[in-house]
């Protein structure tokens, strides 16, 4: 099983969720994060002084999926999250060694 972590632009949340639902993904966990990367931040004003904000609001989607679906999921997220402009984000895949559903104690792919 694999752990997919995607950093995307926040306003893409609904599109990505719908695209994932469309390919049968039924679970994911998201959180608000702040990202630093190639995309420039912006300057903000405070009492007539400007200061630079380097961190931009991003959304992190984490989802566990089976080995055979990894490519499809990554591709789906990529397509749905892409605007073509800098700052679209990245997707990382990490290995999962073990998974448990709290409610039932099931393990392995059944957890998903």
């Amino acid at each position, binding site marked *: 099983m694999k752990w997919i972590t995607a950093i995307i632009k926040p306003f893409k949340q609904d599109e990505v969720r719908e695209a994932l639902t469309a390919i049968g993904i039924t679970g994911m966990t998201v959180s608000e994060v702040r990202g630093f990367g190639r995309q420039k931040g912006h300057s*903000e*004003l*405070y*009492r*007539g*002084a*400007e*200061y*630079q*904000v380097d961190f931009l609001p991003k959304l992190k989607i984490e989802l566990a999926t089976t080995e055979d679906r990894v490519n499809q999921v990554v591709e789906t997220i990529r397509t749905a999250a892409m605007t073509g402009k800098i700052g679209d984000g990245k997707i990382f895949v990490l290995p999962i060694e073990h998974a448990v559903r709290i409610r039932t104690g099931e393990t392995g792919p059944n957890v998903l």
Partner: protein
Amino acid sequence: MKISENRCGLVLHRATASNKMAGPLALAALLLPGVGWAEEAAAVLPPPVLNTGDTAWMLTSTALVLFMTLPGLALFYGGMVRTKNTLSIFTQCFSITAVVTVLWSLFGYSLAFTDGGAANSLIGGTSKAFLAGIKLDSLNGTIPETVFLTFQLTFAIITPALIVGAFAERMKFSAMLLFMAAWVTLVYFPICHWVWGGGWMMTKGVLDFAGGTVVHVNAGIAGLVTALVLGKRKGFPYTAMPPHNLPLTLIGAGMLWVGWFGFNAGSAVGANGAAGMAMLVTQLATATAALGWMFIEWMVHGKPSALGLVTGAVAGLVAITPASGFVGPMGALALGAVAGIVCFFGATSLKRSMGYDDSLDAFGVHGIGGIVGALLTGVFASPDLGGVGFFKGLDMAGQVWVQGVSVLSTGLYCAVVSWILLKVIDLLVGLRVDAESESTGLDIALHGERGYNL
């Protein structure tokens, strides 16, 4: 001249009633040509009686000015600090209110507004300490003395509360309490007496309708001194310290704007033409000051900010404060615009070039705005510019000179005494929290609470 007669008549009532010139308007008696008439008329006027309309407005004004501090100013400042210090601002504003209220009733009112005998040009007396002799039917002019003294109390509350903006995010709560108790006693009460209680500035002809010097220059200078003595916040100016909750600040700004009607129009001490004009010119100057700051920020930085707009508005409110009984509508428009633009530079370039950390621009807005207002009162009071005229015997140059003297004396006295008080308190309990508390935030370190558990 009808207007001056009215106002002198009013003043006369108040003077007769309290056997003393008390309160902002009193000055008008000395200032306007009609005053001779007023003195003659005194012989035939019936003794002053309570006027319910004047009383109603002054009760309302008192509520409005308290509202400026609680929760107005607490919000304005509290939204601008970082999350971890927001409760410290509220706690400071509320506790200052409580402490000043007690001191005012014990001796403050008496020191500010009674006759100090030989020392009267410097300080009042103790005849009304513990509010002795103040009864249900005691009058001050046409309103109950209880209302007059509670109204004046709200000014004594907001002045130290304004200073909070300068030392936000780093002062010990205990030191703050001691400083404020000492400061109102040794700085505010005397200066209030100088200008409104019969002291030397009143005699000299200073025009300060609602407290440009007494309140704003005073608080601004005290703030500057506190900021200098305490030193910069850790990280200033390299770390950005943006406001944690601007909507709170904007609510506070709205409350200040509305409450200021009580501040300025209430300083007419009655529901009369002077109150109406004060309300109108307050609205006008605030509007042009807000626009002044907005447009200059738009030009300089490419965007008009919400905080800029309301900071400009506050600058306008500050600047029109001393002038609000003396200028006309068109003068107010001009005065406000100047204040908005000058304070823009005061809170930005000046602060940066001098390098002090006036956290929330108490000096930048109240100090600078108060000075601008005090001086321009001497200009726009001119009848040629729609104003009501200068102090008896003065021309524009003379009036501006007197205004300047009042600013300088207030600033100097306030700076010296504030500095001494801070040094003494530093020895006694220490002024500044330790580095860890500063980095944890005052809310948890000093008050054991967090602002939000969302």
